[in-house]
């Protein structure tokens, strides 16, 4: 195992025991060989690019995109690739990769495709090097020594940028989902309902409390029905948080009725030793609203024979 350290800041470990040239030599070699390599890539640009695009097509990658789109992206990536080999700086490439990811992620391009595509380019270029230097095995080896670390670094950069962009998109979606996920609805004067659907984690519970307490203020609520039919399970911390929310609502003058407690959640509440006298629970949402109406002194009466 040896470390090739190159003036452009590439630190790449290779495990080529066969070539234990000392670091100085290796560095010098990279400096002399890379320009040759770059010249070769410039010279055969159109044919290598075509080969790459064909192999992407053969491997059934990027099928979400039209062949024309694939080809134009292929061209940009190829040029960026050669530029990285030439300058040693991946800044530009990273920028481009992020931009590209932003365009292709919404179209359903997967991580494995992006990595596959970049590795294919690496293979195509390596093949062309094999062909070019096939008569001089020694030289081929040295060229590959210079080429491989750089190529690996490029592949890592592109894949990394793609994954980063993907994560950013996921985070963004999580945020918007969270916004949507806790509606505070007024069903009657002074009566709010808060249907909770989905997993209630600590962060969401916190947000729910804030929205509820603000909602009590703005709607001047006196009774709140929290329906947790759609919550599969809660851990003790969240159950505790729920109880505190009930207390805090009470401090603001609103009574809370909890409906739709599953047996799992009910057991959790009992396990953490909630003071059950403080909790007003009703089996289902309908019962909860009826109880709330009773507390508010509202009576719903069916009009006699309506519609007949």
């Amino acid at each position: 195992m040896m470390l090739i350290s190159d003036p452009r800041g590439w630190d790449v470990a290779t495990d080529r025991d066969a070539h234990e040239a000392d670091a100085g030599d290796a560095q010098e070699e990279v400096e002399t060989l890379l320009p040759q390599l770059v010249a070769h890539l410039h010279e055969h640009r159109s044919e290598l690019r075509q080969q790459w695009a064909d192999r992407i097509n053969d491997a059934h990658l990027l099928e979400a995109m039209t062949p024309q789109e694939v080809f134009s992206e292929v061209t940009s990536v190829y040029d960026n690739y050669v530029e990285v080999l030439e300058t040693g700086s991946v800044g530009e490439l990273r920028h481009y990769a992020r931009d590209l990811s932003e365009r292709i992620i919404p179209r359903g391009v997967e991580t494995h495709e992006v990595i596959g595509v970049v590795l294919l380019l690496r293979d195509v270029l390596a093949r062309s090097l094999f062909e070019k230097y096939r008569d001089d095995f020694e030289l081929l080896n040295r060229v590959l020594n210079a080429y491989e670390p750089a190529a690996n670094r490029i592949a890592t950069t592109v894949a990394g940028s793609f994954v980063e962009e993907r994560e950013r998109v996921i985070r963004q979606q999580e945020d918007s989902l969270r916004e949507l996920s806790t509606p505070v609805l007024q069903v009657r004067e002074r009566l709010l309902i808060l249907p909770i659907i989905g997993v209630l984690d600590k962060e969401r519970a916190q947000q729910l409390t804030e929205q509820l307490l603000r909602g009590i203020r703005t709607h001047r609520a006196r009774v709140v029905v929290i329906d947790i039919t759609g919550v599969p399970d809660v851990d003790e911390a969240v159950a505790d948080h729920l109880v505190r929310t009930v207390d805090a609502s009470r401090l603001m003058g609103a009574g809370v009725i909890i409906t739709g407690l599953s047996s799992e959640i009910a057991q959790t509440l009992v396990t953490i030793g909630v003071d059950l006298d403080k909790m007003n629970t009703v089996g289902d949402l309908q019962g909860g609203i009826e109880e709330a109406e009773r507390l508010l002194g509202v009576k719903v009466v069916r009009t006699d024979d309506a519609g007949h």
Partner: protein
Amino acid sequence: MRDTEQPPPQEPLRVSILTQGSYLIASIHTALDDGQLHRFRTDLLELIGHRRSRGVIIDVAALDVIDSFACHTLRTIAQVARLRGAETVVVGIQPDVAFTMVKLGAKLESMTTALDLEEGFERLAGIAAVTPLPDAPGLR
């Protein structure tokens, strides 16, 4: 300089206590320290006797923080007032304050709370069974 010229003789309590029929309405305008809270408690309980009040509303809407001592004071006022024949409702607790109080483990079982002054009146009418003025307009 200014401090020596105008020494606060007896720092006025930033609380106004108004009478509305048989109710007392105490509004706290700024944060009170422990000594001021104590004075507030004494003054208020004194007044309940003087005015023969049946209900007390304490408005804390201006407070950003209600610490454990303030909480204790409010609770004591409620308990003492009850012994003297008046029910107490605390109104105007802000959302953030409410949650902080609960997080700090405030014991509020004996305290009646309501959203704001208007709600407080209604709540009092319910529990104290006395309306502030028999013919007060707008109040039930």
